[in-house]
């Protein structure tokens, strides 16, 4: 095109070599950009799932919210399938920086979902087990139970331990938010469960300490703050709850909760 016409020696071997480099660099860069965009989509949809999941603190039908979030996360997994497609035959780490934010956010969302449902920490293995995709069928919903048909090639995506750790570190922030909302909404169990769970994660991170990558150490401070907020919330619940017998509390909150349900029903 135009640019090439401007150079002095059109046929020099140097220029020829650089034309090859140009192609190679552009190809790589385009792939990188596509991955960045996919990662951004994964981030946004994961964040939306988290937003959605936070509704569990204020509605009566938790299962409904969980199901809705699961559908949303299924969509996210489809997008991760597109990332896996882009990475087919590539060195995963070459483009890691392009998609790591999205993957971390997905880990955060899926582990949040898992915690609400099972009150445990999802394992890295479980996360990766859900990231199996059928070749040429990535545009369809990849339901988990489905058997891989022999004609389809299976494509996998492996979340790295570091991305898993960073996602879990961010999860603690969401747990803190959920805990504080729960206090407001009179849920007497969630805060204590969250605080025990968060302490375990906190102890886990202090066990790893600074042996992990720098980004992990950087998140420790925020994690500690989240823990402290959750512990304070439990403390407040305990101290305020101490003034009245437990069975009365239940009364108080059931009436509050139904009031809230009415409000939410309209929304």
């Amino acid at each position, binding site marked *: 095109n135009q640019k090439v016409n401007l150079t002095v020696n059109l046929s020099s071997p140097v220029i020829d070599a650089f034309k090859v480099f140009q192609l190679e660099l552009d190809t790589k860069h385009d792939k990188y950009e596509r991955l960045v965009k996919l990662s951004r989509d994964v981030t*946004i949809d994961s964040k939306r799932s988290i*937003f959605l999941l*936070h509704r569990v603190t204020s509605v009566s039908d938790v299962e409904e919210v969980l199901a809705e979030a699961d559908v949303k996360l299924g969509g996210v997994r489809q997008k991760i399938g597109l990332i896996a497609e882009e990475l087919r035959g590539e060195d995963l780490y070459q483009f890691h920086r392009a998609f790591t934010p999205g993957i971390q956010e997905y880990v955060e969302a899926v582990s949040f979902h898992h915690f609400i449902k099972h009150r445990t920490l999802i394992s890295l293995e479980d996360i990766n087990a859900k990231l199996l995709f059928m070749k040429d069928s990535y545009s369809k919903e990849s339901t988990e139970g489905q058997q891989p048909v022999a004609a389809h090639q299976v494509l996998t995506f492996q979340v790295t331990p570091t991305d898993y750790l960073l996602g879990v570190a961010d999860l603690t922030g969401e747990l803190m*938010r959920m805990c*504080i*909302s729960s*206090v*407001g*909404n*009179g849920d007497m169990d969630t805060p204590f469960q969250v605080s025990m769970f968060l302490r375990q994660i906190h102890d886990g991170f202090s066990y790893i300490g600074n042996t992990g990558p720098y980004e992990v150490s950087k998140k420790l401070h925020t994690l500690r703050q989240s823990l402290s907020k959750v512990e304070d*919330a439990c403390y*407040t619940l305990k101290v*305020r709850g101490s*003034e*009245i017998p437990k069975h*009365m*509390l239940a009364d*108080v909150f059931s009436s*509050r909760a139904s009031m*809230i349900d*009415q*409000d*939410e029903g309209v*929304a």
Partner: protein
Amino acid sequence: MSVTEMFSYIQGFLSADQEIREDIRKVVQVLEQTAREILTLLQSVHQPSGFKEIPSKCTKARELFCTVRTHLGELKTKFSVEQYYRFHEHWRFVLQRLAFLAAFLVYLETESLVTREEVVQILGIEVVRENGFHLDVEDYLAGVLIMANELSRLAVNSVTAGDYSRPLRISNFINELDSGFRLLNLKNDPLRKRYDGLKYDVKKIEEVVYDLSIRGLTKEQDTRGEM
């Protein structure tokens, strides 16, 4: 010489710009002074005696907003309208404070959320950018969030003043506000940070409601229906 003339002409431009900024700064200072006066006035509702005088204080505050309108009117004359964003940083802070004060005033008067249209009317400016000096939606929202913090304080002090129903109404109001904000897709910007503080206001108010509930002090007001 032509180049010299041209540069002299350009120097004129540069000087004019500096003068505009100086002028804007002066008006903004006066605005900040008036905003502080309105704040002092409205904050006196936190005093036990203040609760009965809310209507009279709101009236006085409305008067002070006349002054604000005058100053904002003057501010508009300092630069041409399409340069709003060129100088935005100069008045952004005070405009958010004024939006907060308008929101607080309207809440005290009607216990409802001020709309952007109302704020704009109280301040004598525009909603739509095309029509002139306007209120950015981010600045409106910042003002609303400052008010939420003020309301958590009001909930505490209304109990001290013996008004046990107000905290419940504040609680419903603030919950509604929180649901509203959850609809927004906020970036990691100053607004997001401010919004993160809202959760603590919600929690504080809920604790007040809780304290009242376990003592049976909320019963009498339960008939207020869907509000």
